[in-house]
């Protein structure tokens, strides 16, 4: 259950549309079921009332859409941002990827989003309704008249279990109360991988990445991946966006991507959310974040606009490569 109700968001958006502050609203559009929401642009109060959704399935991070959706827009675009989305928002501004003047950002508190796969693991297939407005999530299936009641905490999306912040780091207006940065356990899983032997770790990733179908969903959803032309789309690179030629190539894709977003990744978790094969891709990025924290001091990408990331900011106090090497098995 979210603190702010759908009706409040619609009311807010409608008033901003009606008084001319914004010309369009980027929100979550109603799907076929209660859980399959699609990012959508709303232009009128009627459209909002008919199709705007705010529930426990509004996981999509809208920050990246701002790059394209504000490009030729007349006036301002209203965007609703969850706390984690605001970090990507700032990071994209740091990289000059969209025009801040064209956006009206409203911060929305978030209690964490639900993972439909986890819900189905409890309720089974055949969902006819999911109600997330109560204390418990009520899931009705075509197989049973009585709904299955599920504790939201049991079906939280992975990235929400390890939520790093309930605080919005960017907005024009905030709905509800501001939250805090959370001292999360998000690096525990990385530490577990670090504790493995090199062979074990290699086997772990080989097994996970062997499921990769090279659909590029991780890259295409990633707010840090906003290159106009990705190397993996360049036919001359020999690694353009196709299925991997061999297992080496599928590792190459993810490792290169992780390197490319290192220091810029805000740990929003979109990569793992969208992966059709449930590969824990965020762990690659989190490893970089953990390393950067340990080598250069705590740094959170997107916390502020214009911050210089440690990897692009040479100082004489920087850690020596030799010391990094010595720590490799720590």
């Amino acid at each position: 259950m979210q603190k702010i109700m759908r009706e409040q968001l619609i009311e807010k958006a409608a008033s901003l549309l009606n008084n001319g502050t914004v010309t369009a609203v980027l929100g979550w559009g109603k799907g076929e079921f209660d859980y399959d929401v699609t990012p959508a642009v709303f232009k009128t109060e009627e459209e909002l009332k008919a199709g705007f959704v705010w529930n426990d399935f509004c996981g999509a991070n809208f920050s990246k859409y701002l790059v394209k959706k504000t490009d030729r827009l007349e006036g301002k675009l209203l965007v609703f941002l969850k706390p984690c989305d605001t970090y990507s928002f700032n990071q994209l501004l740091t990289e000059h990827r969209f025009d801040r003047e064209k956006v009206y950002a409203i911060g929305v508190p978030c209690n964490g989003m639900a993972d439909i796969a986890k819900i189905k693991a409890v309720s089974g297939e055949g969902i006819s309704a999911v109600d997330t407005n109560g204390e418990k999530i009520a899931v009705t299936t075509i197989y049973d008249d009585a709904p299955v009641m599920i504790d939201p905490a049991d079906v939280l999306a992975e990235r929400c279990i390890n939520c790093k912040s309930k605080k919005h780091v960017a907005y024009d207006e905030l709905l509800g109360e501001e939250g805090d940065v959370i001292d999360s356990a998000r690096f525990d899983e990385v530490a577990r991988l670090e504790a493995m032997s090199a062979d074990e770790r290699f086997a772990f990733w080989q097994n996970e990445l062997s499921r990769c179908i090279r659909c590029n969903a991780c890259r295409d959803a990633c707010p840090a991946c906003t290159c106009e032309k990705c190397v993996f789309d360049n036919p001359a690179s020999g690694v353009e966006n196709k299925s991997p030629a061999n297992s080496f190539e599928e590792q190459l894709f993810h490792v290169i991507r992780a390197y490319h977003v290192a220091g810029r990744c805000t740990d929003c978790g979109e990569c793992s959310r969208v992966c059709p094969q449930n590969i824990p891709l965020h762990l690659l990025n989190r490893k970089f974040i953990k390393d950067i924290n340990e080598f250069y001091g705590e740094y959170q990408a997107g916390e502020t606009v214009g911050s210089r990331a440690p990897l692009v900011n040479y100082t004489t106090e920087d850690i020596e490569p030799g010391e990094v090497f010595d720590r490799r098995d720590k």
Partner: protein
Amino acid sequence: MRKCSLNAVNEVFAEIAKAAKLYLPVDQADGSAAFKEWENGVTWSSALNTVKSPKDLFFPQTEDLMAFKTEGKSIEVIDTRREVEDFVVFGVRACDVKSFEILDRVFIKEPVDSYYASKREKGVIVALACTKPSETCFCTAFGICAEEPCGDVSAWKTEDALYFRANTEKGEALMKRLEALTEECGEDAVNAQKEKTAQIMKKLPLAKLDTGAFGGGKTEQLFNAPEWDELSSACLGCGTCTFVCPTCQCYDIKDFNTGNGVIRYRCWDSCMYSEFTKMAHGNNRLTQKERFRQRFMHKLVYYPENNDGLFSCVGCGRCLAKCPISMNIVKVMKKLGGKDSE
């Protein structure tokens, strides 16, 4: 019709695996299922369906086509095709079985694609009837009978037994091998299950999805529909829908320099990708809207136009479950098909 006890299912698998490679859905660590080769100790998944469809076993995501040796100005072409060995794919759902008819019409049409055709010749499909379909299922819209799948052998799983009916010569041969492990039986249990499933199919939320607005000859009405803008607006341009789709069959051919010759291989490709139609001097589909439209027009209009009205979608629901932004063929059909489709 023949049956065996569910307790004996591993003996059946072992018997099949003696003479042919056996692939069946297996649960993976992440909770999803995938077709894997059976060996002693592997457990058959009870999942409704796999993430990747079994088309992978006939039209693999990556497949070597040939090799070349080059030296100076000369080239040697090496036919690397090998005799395909017999294999059995067990537990294929009705939707996925139908997908092979759709793929056959592309690959086993002159000039025959030998890579696909030889696997179709050797592969035996044991289809499994559905009993607990998902809300994302809409195979009925395409005339598919989930409770009575085709394939070389049709199978039904009840509480305690597995029932088989051979439909083809290949299927008969397989059942012959299983004669000692199965017994002749009546059809009552299977008929009861079919009846029950048929009732469930009617209750599915997408049971009434109507294809009436689509089919060959509908290009003019649909191609310039204004709805494509909104439908494609959030599309990320990734290939998830394409790669989990049992009927998508576009491919790319690429050369891989091994340092000791060249391997020419093919791999799945996606019309959703920006480079799909890119030529040296231009690209005839520059926007994601055009690429998005191509995928659905092909499934719902172009393919049926060339194939006696057969749609290139089997309603398996994989794209509904896996699209990162939850845009899919059902939403496209409902939006473009007007009120009639709802």
